[in-house]
C-alpha cells in the first residue's frame, strides 16, 4: 500500500515537475508543500540547528527552481532535491570547519583504536522499541557525534550512498569514509546500549 502511494506520489510529482519546468510557480509550490518536511529533516540531521536547517532547505528549493530544467528524471524529484540540500549542508559545514578546532571524536578516531576499545554490544539495544522512540534515540545519539561522523552515517544509512560516492561528496578518501563510518556505527551502538541501560535502571 505504501509503495502504491509512493509510486502515485512520484507520478504526480512528474506532472508537477513538467509544469514547473514551464514556469508554473503554483505547481512548484505544491512540490514544496509535499517534500518540505523531508528536506528540512535532512538539513536538520546534518546541521543540528533549526535556523541553518531552515535557511539551507529554503536555499535548496530556490536552487531547485533555478536548475529545474536540468532535472531529467533519472531519479525521483525528491531524491534530486535531497542531493541539493545535502550539498548545501556539506558546503556550509566545510565553511564552519575552517573556523573551529577538530572535534574530540575525530581526534580519537584519527589516533586509532578507540572504537575497538568500545565493548561489542551483543544484545540489540533497539529491539522492541516503538518506531517513534527509536527515532528519538537515534536523534539523541546523532547529536552527540561530530559532524564528520554524523554526515558519513547519514549519507550511508539514510541516503544509501556507496563509500565511493560519499568520499566524493565529502572530499576525502574511501579509507577515511570507512574509518569514520566504523567509528560512527560503534559509537551509535554504544550510545543506544547506554540509553537502554538508562531505561532499565
Amino acid at each position, binding site marked *: 500500500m505504501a509503495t502504491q502511494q509512493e509510486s502515485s506520489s512520484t507520478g504526480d510529482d512528474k506532472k508537477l515537475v513538467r509544469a514547473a519546468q514551464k514556469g508554473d510557480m503554483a505547481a512548484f509550490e505544491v512540490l514544496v508543500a509535499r517534500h518540505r518536511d523531508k528536506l528540512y529533516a535532512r538539513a536538520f540531521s546534518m546541521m543540528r540547528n533549526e535556523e541553518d536547517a531552515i535557511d539551507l532547505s529554503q536555499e535548496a528549493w*530556490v536552487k531547485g527552481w*533555478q536548475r529545474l530544467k536540468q532535472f531529467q528524471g533519472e531519479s525521483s524529484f525528491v531524491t534530486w532535491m535531497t542531493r541539493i540540500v545535502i550539498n548545501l549542508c556539506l558546503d556550509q559545514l566545510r565553511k564552519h570547519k575552517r573556523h573551529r578546532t577538530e572535534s574530540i571524536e575525530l581526534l580519537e578516531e584519527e589516533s586509532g583504536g578507540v572504537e*575497538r576499545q568500545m565493548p561489542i554490544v*551483543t544484545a540489540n539495544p533497539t529491539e522492541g522499541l516503538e518506531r517513534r522512540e527509536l527515532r528519538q534515540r537515534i536523534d539523541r545519539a546523532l547529536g552527540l557525534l561530530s559532524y564528520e561522523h554524523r554526515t558519513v552515517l547519514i549519507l550511508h544509512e539514510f541516503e544509501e550512498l556507496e563509500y565511493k560516492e560519499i568520499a566524493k561528496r565529502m572530499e576525502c578518501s574511501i579509507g577515511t569514509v570507512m574509518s569514520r563510518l566504523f567509528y560512527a*556505527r560503534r559509537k551509535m*551502538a554504544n550510545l543506544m546500549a547506554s540509553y537502554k541501560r538508562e531505561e532499565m535502571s
Partner: protein
Amino acid sequence: MKRDLALKYQAFVDGELSEREARGVAEAIERDPEAQALVAELRATRTALAGNEPEVTLPETPEFYWSKIEGEIRRRGEEPVGTAGARWVAILAGWRRFLAPVAGVAVVTFLAIAAIKFQTGQVEDYAQHLAEIENLSEHSTSFSFRSGNMFVVWVQDKDYADVDNQVELIDNEDAFQ
C-alpha cells in the same frame, strides 16, 4: 582485532567487497567468534538506522516558509536583467578609469611629436610659407602661405588687427593660379 580487518568486516556488511573477497571474509568470520559479534553489532546498527531518520517538524508555518522561497525566486528571477545592466555600468566605469591616463598619454605624445617636428625644421617650412607678406596699403597687410595642397591668404586691417581680419582659404592651389 586489527583495524584493517575490522574495516574489511564492515565493508563485507555493506556489500562493498567483490564476490571473491566477500567469500574469503565470510569464511574468516565463521572461524572467529569476535568477528561474528562485531558483524552482528554492525548489522544491528545498520538495520536500526535504515529508514529511521529522525522526524522533525518545520518550525515555521507552511505559508511563511513558502513566501520566503517565492520571494527569493522572484528576486533572483529579476536578477539577470539587473545584473546585465549593472555589468555594463561596471564595464563603462572600468573604461572610464583609463580615460584620464589615456588622455594624458595622448597629450604627451602630441607634444612630443610637435617638439620633434619643431626641431627637425618643419616649422622653418611654415616660416618660408609666411615669407610672402605684402603691404597692400598703409591700412592693411596680407599674409599668404602654402601648406600641402592648400594656399592660405590672410588679409589684416592694421587699425583693427584684432577684430577685422579676413582669411581666404583656397583649397586648390591650381584653382588659385
